[in-house]
């Protein structure tokens, strides 16, 4: 059992009478890499700030590496700021959606985190390393002032400042949403590199589902202040072409196709909730679901009271959950050919 | 960072130096604080006397020039140690109330009536009371200081002596509330008359390059004398230890040498003050 990075209990937060965040329980393990998805206003940013220990929830306990940071249920405390346990805060770095650079040079911005920690040895080297990470050669960028950078460059400087302190946890709130493509690419590479080199845990909120699918081990889906789904959704990236009967189709390698309803763009990514999938061992007939795809069981993992099943559908991995009695009665085992059934309308767009 | 430290140290040192300079400057023992009037200061007499005083007695005279009323007030509140003013009535009250002692006449200059060369009211050469009566009768423009200064108080006294009420509600009577030169300027603009001390008139004449629009019309009347006196601030009222210096200053002012020195003071080549210490 790896040690717990975060343990949140009965955490609620909000202003006035309403709660904008309500998380009864959340556990993240050390070295985790977690994605966070959800529409705007679903409480993602609030949760990230609480995880970053820069904001205290109104109610509930937040434990970081075993140490409790939040308070017991204290109704009416309002959005209080954290002052205690600040040494714990130094293990977590958060990159806000619209990062703010200090009115100093690029070098000083990146060095700030190290300076407040008193780590002056090898400061230049670490700053230089962090700048290289994000694709900003120190020779050219170190002396630039905060107002002499493009949007993407500013974003990368902000990221470099967080990478330089080698935090245990790196929290990113929409890191690639408002930057140019090259910056987005460099940011993603830097994040991946940090994880590779230092084992940094990642908590990333992003609309880029394709990226999240690749970099995050698990994804939390948030809606209306709650975490509604704990487990990675299936991602179907398209491309989507118009098919007959008003549906759009994503072609698979072996000639099969997935049908969906009205993608916003031909290259939009769709999410398929694993609980929307039904497995059959025989080709279904006379069902309303538009999708009935043939595939092979790749793996099965027990997860508490359910079994998580991964199916290879023409090279595309899809997973769903079934109950043990169902698995037994259908004799679902790895290698078995099954049919994956789901409605065209159960695909959600991102 | 090093650069910043250097800047901070520089500023701090500069600050300390300035502070030291400012504080060290105030450290003399034989400093005598005096209150006098603006018109006295404007004559330049004190600039002329102060260095001689310093040389002969070592006293460092510092004076602030304000209106007579304020000068007396400063004496009353012990903010100065000696007064040089020219309002005998107010001075007597001051001494009576116990605020001042050793009131001593030192010199006088005189007031004069000036007005346009054309003299519409016809006051030239007349005695003071007659001149004022004529001005009131003809309703000629008259500019007054109107600021409770020595000159203003003298003017009020003259109206009273002519058995006339001070005409400050009349439209031809202009109460300026300003200094002497400004009041003269206003009188000139309105082609009117005014009462001024001779010293300021000499300055005005010089400013006008010897060709002033207003000329002297009435002078020499005993009632026009402007008597200056020095008063020491009563040490019983103000036990601040400066009384000894004030007494020494007064002694110096009435000494024959200084009195001659005062008479030698000229403005525009003309004698301005007539020493009369010891006169009854």
């Amino acid at each position: 059992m790896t040690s717990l990075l975060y343990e949140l209990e009965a955490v609620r937060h909000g202003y006035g009478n309403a709660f904008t965040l309500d998380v009864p329980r959340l556990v993240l393990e050390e070295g985790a890499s977690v994605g966070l998805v959800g529409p705007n206003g679903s409480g993602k940013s609030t949760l990230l700030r609480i995880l970053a220990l820069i904001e205290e929830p109104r109610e509930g306990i937040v434990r970081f590496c075993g140490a409790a940071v939040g308070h017991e249920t204290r109704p009416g405390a309002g959005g209080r700021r954290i002052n205690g346990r600040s040494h714990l805060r130094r293990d977590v770095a958060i990159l806000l959606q619209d990062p703010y650079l200090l009115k100093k040079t690029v070098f000083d911005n990146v060095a700030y985190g190290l300076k407040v920690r008193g780590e002056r040895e090898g400061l230049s080297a670490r700053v230089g390393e962090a700048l290289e990470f994000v694709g900003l050669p120190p020779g050219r960028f170190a002396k630039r002032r905060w107002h002499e950078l493009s949007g993407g460059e500013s974003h990368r400087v902000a990221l470099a400042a967080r990478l330089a302190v080698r935090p245990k946890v790196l929290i990113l709130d929409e890191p690639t949403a408002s930057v140019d493509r090259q910056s987005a690419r460099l940011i993603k590479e830097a994040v991946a590199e940090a994880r590779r080199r230092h084992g940094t845990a990642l908590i990333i909120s992003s609309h880029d589902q394709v990226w999240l699918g690749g970099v995050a081990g698990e994804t939390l889906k948030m809606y209306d202040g709650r975490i509604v789904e704990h487990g990675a959704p299936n991602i179907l990236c398209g491309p989507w072409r118009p098919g007959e009967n008003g549906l759009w189709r994503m072609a698979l390698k072996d000639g099969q196709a997935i049908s969906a309803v009205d993608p916003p763009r031909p290259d939009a990514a769709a999410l398929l909730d694993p609980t929307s999938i039904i497995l059959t061992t025989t080709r279904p007939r006379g069902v309303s679901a538009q999708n009935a795809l043939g595939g092979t069981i790749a793996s099965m993992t027990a997860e508490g009271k359910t079994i998580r099943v991964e199916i290879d559908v023409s090279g595309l991995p899809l997973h769903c959950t079934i109950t043990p009695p169902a698995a037994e009665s259908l004799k679902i085992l790895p290698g078995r050919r099954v049919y994956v059934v789901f409605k065209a309308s159960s695909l959600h767009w991102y | 960072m090093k650069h910043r430290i250097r800047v901070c140290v520089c500023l701090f040192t500069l600050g300390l130096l300035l502070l030291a300079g400012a504080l060290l400057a105030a450290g003399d023992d034989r400093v005598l604080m005096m209150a006098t009037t603006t018109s006295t200061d404007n004559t330049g007499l004190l600039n002329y006397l102060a260095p001689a005083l310093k040389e002969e007695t070592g006293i460092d005279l510092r004076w602030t020039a304000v209106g007579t009323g304020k000068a007396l007030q400063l004496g009353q509140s012990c903010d100065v140690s000696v007064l040089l003013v020219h309002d005998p009535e107010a001075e007597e009250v001051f001494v009576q109330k116990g605020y001042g002692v050793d009131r001593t006449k030192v010199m006088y200059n005189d007031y004069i009536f000036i007005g346009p060369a054309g003299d519409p009211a016809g006051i030239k050469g007349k005695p003071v009371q007659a001149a004022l009566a004529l001005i009131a009768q003809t309703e000629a423009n008259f500019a007054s200081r109107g600021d409770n200064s020595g000159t203003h108080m003298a003017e009020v006294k003259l109206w009273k002596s002519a058995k006339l009420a001070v005409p400050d509600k009349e439209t031809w009577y202009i109460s300026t509330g300003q200094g002497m030169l400004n009041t003269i300027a206003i009188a000139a603009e309105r082609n009117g008359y005014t009462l001024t001390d001779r010293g300021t008139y000499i300055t005005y004449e010089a400013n006008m390059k010897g060709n002033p629009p207003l000329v002297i019309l009435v002078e020499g009347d005993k009632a026009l004398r402007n008597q200056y006196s020095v008063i020491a601030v009563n040490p019983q009222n103000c036990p601040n230890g400066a009384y000894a210096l004030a007494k020494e200053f007064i002694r110096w002012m009435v000494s024959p040498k200084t009195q001659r020195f005062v008479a030698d003071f000229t403005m525009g080549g003309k004698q301005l003050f007539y020493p009369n210490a010891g006169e009854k």
Partner: protein
Amino acid sequence: MAYIIEGFLKAWELLFTGHPETYSAVAVTLKATSLSIAGSLVTGLPAGFCLAYCTFPGKKFLRALVDTLLALPTVVVGLLVYAFVTYRGPLGKLGLLFTIPGMAVAQIVLVFPIVVSLTATAVEGLDRRLRPTLLGLGARGGQLLSATLSESRFAIFTASATAYGRAISEVGASMMIGGNIKWHTRTITTAIALETGKGEFAMGIALGIVLLLLAFTVNWTLVLLKRRS
């Protein structure tokens, strides 16, 4: 109109012939304003900072009060300070009346609300993301404070420059408390008042130009310092 041109010419004459009274006035002005700026910044910057940053009951009232004090006429300030530094007043024994430090005190009273108000505005105008950014980078307590001050340094520079302008140009309080004593407490502004009262308008203009040059020199130094930081 003629006296304005005459004044310009006279200004150069005063400066280049080393006119002693003028240079004395400059020195007195510099001493008094340096003291008053130092005093008002040392007290006003933290006060203004706290007014914006901290929460306490009656904060809005205090803010309104400070802003109202911006309208204090200088002569009124002079009267108030005089009541304190006169011989019989509470601070009488300090011997501040008719001295440069006394004038500095009056100027501090005048300028303090400016520093507080402008600093508070500067801190209020700080980006809302600053605090979470600093916290997120691991800053604590004193580090938060110094970083916040550093971020508002440009606005604070402006506040200081404004305050200095007010201090160096004021007449009423300096006149009352300083007494306009030649060589000792005659500042450029009280000298201008004196000369103008005597009708010497050209001299008044000339001294005014000297004052502006002085203020310009100080502000230029500030600008240079600002650019370096």
